[in-house]
């Protein structure tokens, strides 16, 4: 079946004078398609099995009562509709987890962005000496394992740890960070900001370098102050960059998991249980249906937040 096409294809292409033809021949070419699929096949097999299928499987599990006992022989699994989701929102721990996750995102993202942008502006304001060293040092927390970092910060946050020692140095009596339900979340947020600001800093730095210098010069000639020029020129031009940063940070902040796992086990009093941590706990209890439902709430939140941010930034642009 395919052989005529295979034989015919090359002479056709050779005879054709136009060079703008898509490389690799017409989309419909059977041979091209086979070759391309052959190139993609290892990727497709692995990606379909371990990447795509679990996403659908997770969705279907979330509407069943599957538990760890059913994993091998899923005969006694029943369809339960939206029961898992109803149960989730009836569970005060999950409601708290949703609140905690939103708290983490709502405070963590703006804080990270302000710090990242301030540092990017500082690094971009004409300093040459040691700029590379500054960049590397500020970026270092990004590459380190969150588990290792959490282990270290757990001790920094002890009532008599280094952070409270530093606070005492300026006359503030620090709280018992990780054992006080009011301070446990701020503690995790502070650590997350520390670990993440390097990425948006570098992205902002690239964005700042693409702001034309003439615009700032013109503003200066017109007598604008630095702050005014920053607000009226730099910030609007950084809008696309800000969108990218906001989306990236929401995706990673919404799934925070390792921090409560290592530092607080979700406590005290569920004050640091995140949606991911809740899903992991349900998985640990063997409630695979509930765990999948909780995960899907998270996916929905990520999709929604990305969408909303995209709309807001585009509307303003």
């Amino acid at each position, binding site marked *: 079946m395919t052989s005529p096409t295979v034989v015919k294809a090359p002479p056709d292409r*050779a005879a054709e004078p136009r060079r703008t033809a898509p*490389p*690799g021949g*017409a*989309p419909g070419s059977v041979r*091209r398609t086979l*070759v391309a*699929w052959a*190139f*993609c096949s290892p*990727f*497709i097999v*692995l*990606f379909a099995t*371990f*990447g*795509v*299928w679990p*996403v659908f*499987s*997770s969705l279907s599990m979330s509407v069943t009562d599957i538990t760890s006992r059913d994993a091998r022989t899923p005969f006694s699994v029943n369809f339960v509709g939206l029961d898992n989701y109803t149960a989730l929102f009836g569970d005060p721990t999950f409601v708290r987890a949703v609140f905690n996750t939103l708290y983490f995102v709502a405070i963590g993202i703006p804080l990270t962005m302000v710090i990242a942008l301030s*540092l990017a502006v*500082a690094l971009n*304001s*004409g*300093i040459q000496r040691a700029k590379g060293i*500054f*960049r*590397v040092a*500020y*970026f*270092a*927390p990004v*590459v*380190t394992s*969150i*588990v*290792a970092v*959490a*282990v*270290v910060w757990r*001790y920094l946050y002890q009532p008599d740890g280094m952070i409270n020692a530093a606070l005492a140095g300026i006359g503030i009596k620090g709280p018992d960070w990780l054992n006080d339900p009011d301070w446990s979340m701020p503690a995790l947020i502070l650590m997350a900001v*520390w670990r993440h600001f390097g*990425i948006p800093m570098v*992205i902002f730095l690239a964005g700042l370098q693409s702001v034309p210098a003439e615009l700032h*010069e013109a503003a*200066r000639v017109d007598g604008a102050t630095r702050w005014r020029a920053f607000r009226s020129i730099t910030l609007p031009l950084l809008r696309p960059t800000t969108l*990218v940063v906001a989306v*990236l940070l929401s995706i990673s902040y*919404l*799934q925070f998991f*390792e921090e409560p*796992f290592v530092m607080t086990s979700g406590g005290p009093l569920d004050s640091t249980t995140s949606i*991911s941590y809740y*899903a*992991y706990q349900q*998985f640990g209890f063997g409630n*695979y249906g509930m765990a999948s439902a909780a*995960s899907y709430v*998270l996916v929905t939140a990520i999709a929604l937040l990305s969408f909303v941010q995209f709309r807001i930034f585009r509307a303003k642009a």
Partner: protein
Amino acid sequence: MTTTTTSTTQTGLDLSTHRRTPPARLTLYAALTAGIVATLAPFAWMFLGSVKPTGEIVAHPSTWLPQSPTLANFEQLLSKQNFELYFLNSTLVALACVAGNLLFCSMAGYAFAKIEFLGKRFLFGLVLTMLIIPGVTTFVPLFVLVSNMGLSNTYLGLILPFLVTPLGVFLMRQFIRDIPDSLVEAARLDGAGEARIFLRVILPLCRPSLATLAILTFLAQWNNFLWPLVISQTEEHYTLPVALALFSVGANSTNYGLLLAGAVTVVTPIILLFLALQKHFIQGIANTGIK
């Protein structure tokens, strides 16, 4: 024109030549340095603490510099806690995933970038969608799947789900797309097959993006936590982060010296790699936004 230039110079606002007055510049440097001290302090505390006896870490008042430096924590980590094995496990898993991503993702990336074929748009759309799906959504069915394959608590079980990533394909496709079509076309007219073009023309040109992909994959796998935590049930398949995390919430949670030495063991290889290849790291992560 002349007048404005003069006036701005007089008011000391000429940003193009002297962007900052000396005191302002000093303040800037001072602030940035203070920021660095704050940023690196947790690392300093970790490294210094790892060579202190536990008693000294919890002592009051505690000091930054070790009073009686010792390597006992590391010795104990290796002799009694099997960290050597976890280190090897982490290395093996990370390197296997790097190899898989480099080979399979560049092959698929080539097809997506340079060959027109049926199903391409659908497949690539799927790749883009999967880019934002977090691992926490799929770990439950993935665990069921891998367990049913008989691969739970095996190296294959640790590696297979990350042997290819949508990010890898996306990265390679973007890079290969920028290679001029004329190079590929010329090779095709010379009668070279696709496999030959891929190996001889495309791959040698892809070195920079292969390096980026290798670094990103290694970093992601070295630090990966949730999946190894779920799939490795006994110590012989623990990776470093899993071992450290379980260690830190278990019976040894107050053995500060050991824990800090463990953290140093997890962090040091990446820090060294980062210092050696910082440009690749920073650009790679900034361009993809994913670590």
